[in-house]
């Protein structure tokens, strides 16, 4: 009851402490989002001059883009393939790193390398390794007799996609493996002992005990990766810039390509992308709350 008698001024007491954080959020999160949405309804000339409102024309133009359909399809395939492969390989790697073996510490360190290096750097590194005339991977594969002559891997969408997926998986592995490894270490040893006493096979133990207990870590890994891979710009931009034309572009890269021709249309795609990410974040929040409740 004493709370009610406080003066209005005193109620502002916490403001100096939370004020800077609120201001930061307003300036670097809310304001750019507002600008982004506003821009998507503007008519902007190629020179950058604002010519007034465009209504929903830019959204209309975006959905009418001949490339938009296959860009969306590829975005879905790209996200699902990369996340799926990453999780599968990480499950194996985490299991391996959870075993005692000589040199485990060093190999665990080594796994951090793709994570520690800038993704753009890794992508450009692979781009050069795959270069047709000077690439070390082309030379190695020719010498090993895997291919007859050096190939232009990144120039053709059908060969560029597998390589980009490979690189995206390569840079996503460390985070996912460590998340799963942390999960594995929380599984108490007694559970395994009890299972042993009951005479379960190794495979049964994995399916019935390890995987269910790993669920919290697995869900975090899946959702964070979904957001990350969906937004993945550096891998694709660094390797093909979405080309030829928009054949290897996801929506994030396509947005950047549109910036050259129509700023408003590009902003419209940003809004669409932003909405999709918000949906994924809400999903993540829901899932993590569900996790906590299950954990109790």
């Amino acid at each position, binding site marked *: 009851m004493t709370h009610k008698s406080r003066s209005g001024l005193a109620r502002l007491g916490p403001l100096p402490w939370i004020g800077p954080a609120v201001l930061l959020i307003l300036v670097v999160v809310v304001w750019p989002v507002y600008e982004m949405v506003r821009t998507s309804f503007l008519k902007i000339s190629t020179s950058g*001059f604002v010519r007034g409102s465009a209504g929903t024309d830019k959204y209309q133009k975006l959905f009418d883009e001949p490339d938009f359909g296959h860009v969306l399809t590829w975005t879905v395939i790209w996200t699902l393939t990369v996340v799926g492969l990453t999780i599968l390989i990480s499950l194996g790697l985490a299991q391996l790193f959870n075993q005692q073996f000589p040199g485990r510490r060093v190999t665990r360190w080594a796994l951090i390398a793709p994570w520690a290096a800038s993704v753009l750097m890794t992508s450009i590194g692979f781009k050069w390794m795959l270069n*047709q005339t000077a690439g070390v991977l082309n030379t190695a594969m020719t010498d090993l007799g895997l291919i007859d002559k050096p190939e232009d891997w990144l120039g*053709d969408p059908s060969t560029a996609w597998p390589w980009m997926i490979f690189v995206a998986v390569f840079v996503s592995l460390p985070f996912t493996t460590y998340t799963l490894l942390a999960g594995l270490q929380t599984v108490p040893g007694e559970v395994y002992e009890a299972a042993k006493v009951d005479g379960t096979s190794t495979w049964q133990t994995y399916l019935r005990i390890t995987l269910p207990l790993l669920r919290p870590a697995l869900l975090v890994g899946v959702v964070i990766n979904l957001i990350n891979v969906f937004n993945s710009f550096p891998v694709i931009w660094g390797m093909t810039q979405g080309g*030829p034309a928009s054949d290897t572009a996801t929506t994030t890269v396509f947005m950047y390509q549109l910036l050259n021709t129509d*700023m408003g249309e590009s902003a419209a795609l940003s809004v669409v992308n932003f909405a999709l990410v918000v949906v994924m974040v809400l999903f993540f929040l829901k899932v*993590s709350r569900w996790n906590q409740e299950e954990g109790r």
Partner: protein
Amino acid sequence: MNRRVLSLSAICAVGALALTACGSNGGGGGKSADGSVTLKLVAADYGDKATNASKLYWDEVAKGFEAANPKIKVDVQVINWNDIDTQVKTMIQSGNVPDVLQTGGYADKVADDLLYKASDVLSPATQSNFIDSFSKAGQVDGTQYGIPFVSSARAFFYNKTIFSKAGIAAPPTTWDEVKADAQIIKSKKLAATPYALPLGPEEAQGESMIWELGNNGGYTDDSGKYTINSQANIDTFSWLKTNLVDPGLTYANPATTDRKTAFADFAAGKVGMLNGHPSLIQMAKDGKVDYGVAPIPGKTGPLTSTLGVADWMMAFKKNGHQEQIKKFLDFAFSKENTLKFDEEYNLMPVTKDTLQEMTSSGKHKDLEPFFSLLPGAKFYPLGDTTWDAVSAEIKKSGGTAVKDDPAQVLGALQKKAEDAVANK
């Protein structure tokens, strides 16, 4: 665990959003109390290392100009080619425009009535000094807005060593000869890429136009209407597809191969022939490639007029500094200054007195095959205010015309061009 991951991703999100907000920067000229005026000059960087950065050149020009005009200060900002378009867009969008801008194109700014007419900011003597073909390329609907700054023209380069090993006596003059020579080079394994065809996003519009000119095609007809999917152009790309790309006489994927790759390959001796411009001269010399320069082959004979490219200077009306800009441009386009710039970067002049000086001084033997091309050069439809948007589309997907169906690719581009005209 969850919370840490959450806060980590929150920090990432905040960082990413903060980055997008860093586009604009302060400034903007104005009159100060003592009546002096600050002109804001934004220019592109032609240098490739610290010692030849264009900033050094412009600082020198500004210093000389300020000494002669104590009431006018020049604020120089030099931006590299990769960023200048986006940064200028941001300046215009935020209302913080420069007084004088030197970059690659001008017409899209005319559409929004942002620029002074050339005659408003150039003295008659300076204006009549420009080579006519360039002044004309600076016109929108008969009025000159774009002020040419430097130029370059395309010619055919070939590797003399490879040609003599192949037993080819003279450079090709027709498309069929290009194909025949490329086949000899390929069969004798003298070069990884017999003919370099760069149609990647860097400059697809350039290589495309050169080939289209060879078949009397081009991007527009005489009235200025877009004719990107004219029969002549479709035939040109069909020819390239069946005669150079499919038989493996050029890169496997021209649509993703950029000009700089082609130039680097030529300088490394891996290319038999290609279309190049004067900056390839120095690269070839550095790579110890014995090169020859010849007229560009067309379908039935060499091109009489080749592709000319110019970079432009323009003056913005917003800050109202017409008098001061006029003084500055007259100073910047003096023979002394333009000659220094052209010689520094091995570029071609746009003014009559500098061309005269460079042709007669005997110091530029390398450039001689190019000087004669200038007066008759053909340009992109620079004066069309939709060209920048159309050019961006051609850069993005034009190259796929030699892999997919040419009629379909060019048809889609033509449609985009017509849409751009309709929404002008």
